[in-house]
C-alpha cells in the first residue's frame, strides 16, 4: 500500500455524503446495474419485484463498495493522474479511514442482504466479484502486469451472472456466455481509453498495455478482441436448449458487433500521427464501447419480452 498524502491526512471538514457517493464511481456503477438488471430480466423465470429490486440494490452496493475500496487503495496514484485527481481522496475532502470503513460496510451489507433475501449462491458470487475487483485486480494485478485489465475484466463481468442466479438459483450456460461477453469486451473498451491517457498511466507507474507493450501491439490486440467479440456476442442466439435468445437479439448483436469491429479496425490499423494527434478514433471506440454494451443487453431483454 502507498503512504497517505499530506492533503489526504488532514481533513478540515467532515466527509460530505456527496463525496461518499462519488467514492462508489456512480458512472461505472450505472453500467454494472444495467447489466445486472438485464441478467435478471432475461432469465427464463420471474422474481418477486421487491426481491428483484433487492438483488439489483445488492449488486449496486457491492459494486460501489468495491469501487470505494479501489479508490481507498489507489488514493496516491489517483492524485498523480489528471483524470482522477479531482476524486474526494486525492483532493483531501475525505479521510482514508472513513473511505475504508464506508467501503467495508457497503461490501458486507451487500453480501449479507443478498444472502438473506435472495440466495447464498448469488451472495457468494457477489462476494467473489468484490474480492476479484478490490484484491485480485486493484492490489495484485494492476500494479504488476499489463494483462491486468484482461484478467481483472472478470470483475465487471459478474453482474449479469448474479442477476440471472438471483432469479433461477443456479448457473446455466447462458449467464456464463453473458459473463464471457463482458470479459472479452473489457480489454478493447479499456485499452481504447488507455491509448489516449497513456502518458498519465506511465507517470504513475501503472503497467497498462500501451505503456509496456507499446501502442502498436495494443492496437493489434484491440482488433483481436473485437474479432473474437463478434461471434461471441451472437452465441446466446445459437445456444442449444430452451434458454437461448431469439432473432431480435441475434441480429442486433451481429449489427452492433460489426460496428464495434469496424471502429476497432480503424484503431487497430492506425499509427499515431504525432504529439498533436487528437486520438479521435480511439475516443470514438471508447464512447461506442459503452453504448455497445448498453444496447447489446437491452436487445437481450427486448428479445425476451418479445418472445413472451
Amino acid at each position, binding site marked *: 500500500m502507498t503512504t497517505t498524502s499530506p492533503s489526504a491526512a488532514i481533513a478540515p*471538514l*467532515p*466527509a*460530505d*455524503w456527496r463525496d461518499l457517493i462519488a467514492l462508489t464511481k456512480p458512472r461505472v456503477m450505472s453500467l454494472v446495474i444495467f447489466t445486472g438488471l438485464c441478467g435478471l430480466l432475461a432469465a427464463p423465470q420471474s422474481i*418477486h419485484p*421487491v*426481491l428483484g429490486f*433487492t438483488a439489483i*440494490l445488492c449488486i449496486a452496493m457491492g459494486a460501489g463498495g468495491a469501487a470505494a475500496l479501489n479508490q481507498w487503495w489507489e488514493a496516491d496514484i489517483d492524485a498523480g493522474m489528471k483524470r482522477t485527481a479531482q476524486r474526494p481522496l486525492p483532493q483531501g475532502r475525505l479521510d482514508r479511514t472513513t473511505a475504508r470503513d464506508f467501503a467495508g460496510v457497503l461490501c458486507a451489507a451487500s453480501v449479507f442482504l443478498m444472502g438473506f*433475501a435472495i440466495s447464498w449462491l448469488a451472495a457468494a458470487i457477489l462476494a467473489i466479484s468484490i474480492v476479484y475487483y478490490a484484491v485480485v485486480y486493484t492490489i495484485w494485478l494492476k500494479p504488476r502486469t499489463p494483462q491486468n485489465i484482461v484478467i481483472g475484466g472478470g470483475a465487471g463481468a459478474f453482474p449479469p451472472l448474479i442477476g440471472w442466479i438471483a432469479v433461477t438459483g443456479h448457473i446455466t450456460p447462458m449467464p456464463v456466455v453473458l459473463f464471457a461477453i463482458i470479459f472479452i469486451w473489457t480489454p478493447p473498451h479499456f485499452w481504447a481509453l488507455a491509448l489516449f491517457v497513456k502518458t498519465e498511466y506511465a507517470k504513475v507507474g501503472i503497467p497498462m498495455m500501451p505503456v509496456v507493450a507499446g501502442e502498436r501491439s495494443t492496437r493489434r490486440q484491440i482488433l483481436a478482441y473485437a474479432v473474437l467479440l463478434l461471434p461471441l456476442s451472437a452465441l446466446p442466439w445459437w445456444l442449444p436448449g430452451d434458454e437461448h435468445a431469439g432473432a431480435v437479439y441475434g441480429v442486433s448483436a451481429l449489427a452492433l458487433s460489426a460496428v464495434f469491429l469496424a471502429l476497432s479496425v480503424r484503431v487497430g490499423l492506425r499509427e499515431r500521427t504525432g504529439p498533436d494527434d487528437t486520438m479521435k478514433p480511439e475516443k470514438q471506440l471508447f464512447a461506442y464501447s459503452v453504448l455497445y454494451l448498453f444496447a447489446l443487453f437491452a436487445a437481450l431483454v427486448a428479445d425476451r419480452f418479445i418472445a413472451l
Partner: protein
Amino acid sequence: MTKPEPQPPRTVAQIRSSRNRVLGLSLAAFVVLVFFISIAKMS
C-alpha cells in the same frame, strides 16, 4: 448571460447535518426494504 453568484463555503454543522439526514433516510429506507422483503418471502 450573468455569471452565477459564488456559493459561500459550507460550514461543519451544515455538512454534518446533511450527512446525518442522508444517513437517517438510508436507515429508514433499509427498514422499509426489510419489511417488504419479509412480506415478499412469506407470500
